[in-house]
């Protein structure tokens, strides 16, 4: 996926607020690309633009899949008319689980799957196993813990077999241990399913633990990129290489802060 000169501004209290300014970035269709940035730098906005929930002012989001490139003009919704939905299927995981409270775990997971689709049960069983939710298929979201709800949301996104996963700080609300656990599970899922993942977070540790590529989003653009594809999982965050990258990321973000002051 490539993003060219993406611009987006909002009107806040009568003033124009440029959230994204000529953003250029590239995300591997089979890696975990982590977008890292401070609160309010436009991470959620970027994700919503890619998901088609928001319209860009200008710029393009271009999907390149297999041989032929598919172009999604800015502002045009994925899943709308034309072949775009068939070309790139997106799975979106929001910051909150956003499960349907009136559906059981099983029905929530199958929410996006066609009723007539064959082998629904088989798929459900596989996803329950993958996300460790076996035995809870008849439970309602209100009966699940926060982490289990988030895993249900992950399973729901995977259920329609997307080519690409968009995740907006999905683990931000979880405690340290559950968070580590979920990160491991995500990496496992990614390995097994070989999907592209765009993961938004404000935690440097999280970015280092899961990303094959880290993009620092700042001031409306892509400030710096790090390639971590060579680092094997599970990662030791005390590895000198990673510690070095972490220091550099902190410097990048803080330096920006100083020039602003």
């Amino acid at each position, binding site marked *: 996926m490539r993003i060219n000169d993406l611009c987006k501004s909002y009107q806040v209290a009568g003033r124009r607020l440029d959230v994204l300014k000529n953003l250029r970035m590239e995300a591997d269709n089979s890696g975990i690309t982590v977008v890292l940035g401070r609160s309010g730098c436009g991470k959620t906005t970027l994700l919503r633009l890619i*998901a*088609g*929930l928001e319209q860009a002012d200008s710029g393009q989001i271009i999907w390149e899949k297999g041989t032929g490139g598919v172009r999604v003009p800015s502002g045009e919704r*994925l*899943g709308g008319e034309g072949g775009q*939905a068939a070309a790139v299927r*997106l*799975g*979106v995981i*929001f910051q*909150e689980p*956003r499960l*349907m*409270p*009136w559906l059981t775990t099983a029905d929530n997971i199958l*929410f*996006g799957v066609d009723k007539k689709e064959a082998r629904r049960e088989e798929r459900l069983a596989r996803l329950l196993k993958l996300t460790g939710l076996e035995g809870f298929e008849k439970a*309602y*979201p*209100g*009966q699940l813990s926060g982490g289990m709800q988030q895993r249900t949301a992950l399973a729901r996104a995977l259920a*329609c077999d997307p080519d690409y996963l968009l995740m907006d700080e999905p683990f931000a609300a979880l405690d340290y241990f559950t968070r580590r656990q979920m990160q491991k599970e995500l990496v496992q899922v990614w390995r097994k399913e070989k999907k592209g993942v765009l993961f938004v977070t404000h935690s440097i540790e999280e970015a280092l633990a899961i990303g094959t590529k880290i993009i620092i989003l700042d001031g409306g653009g892509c400030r710096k990129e790090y390639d971590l594809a060579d680092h094997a999982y599970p990662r030791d965050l005390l590895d000198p290489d990673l510690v070095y990258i972490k220091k550099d990321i902190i410097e990048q973000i803080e330096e920006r802060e100083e020039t602003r002051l």
Partner: protein
Amino acid sequence: MNRVGKTAAGIGVLLAVWQLAVMSGIWSTYVLPPPSKVANSFLVMAGNGTLWKHILVSMRRVLTGFGIAFSLALVCGIVASGLPKLEEYYGGFLEFMRHVPPISLIALLILWFGIGETSKIIIIVLASFFPMYLNIRKGFASADRKLLEVGEVFGLSRWQKFCRIIVPCAVPDVLVGMRIGLGYSWRAIIGAEMIAAASGLGYLILDAQQMSRSDRVIVGIITIGMVGILCDRIFQILIQRCRSYENK
């Protein structure tokens, strides 16, 4: 003491006060019959079947009126939340009608629709429409935007989003509206049966009033109250069924 016991105790105190008031002799037994006389009338009327006949007749009117009111409220409520532009045309009129007591329309209704069932049912419809309309409109308008976005990213059509997200979100409010509406329907039965009725619980009360049979008036009142509670209970159980996912 549990709930039932406490309720029974409360009713017992009420009966005792009633009995004491009768024994004090301030009111003649014409005006205030003793509980025993009311109980006797109740048993007689239940025994010879007149009470059941009245209940059935009223029940039919209430349910017909309630059903019509609910259908109208459902259509108007869905339109109001789904097509707010269209609502602007009828919203003002509804707002006006909401403040007009249905009984004030009896004279006109008799002139327009005669003294048959139609006028009676219209009274019930008018009485129960508004609480249902307001609740249903609220229910359909308050679908969670965040959940709608989930539908969006799964590529659901407008119709699919309506069926699979907006309707389930609205169900609890719709049921609450129906429950309130049913209560209002029962309360309108007297007004409805003021229009030349020959049977029904409202008629029973009005007729007994003409005959100065206070005991029968009280029997009618108690019956309306009990049937109302029964209907409400059934509804409450229904609501709990539909919202069971919340309590579990």
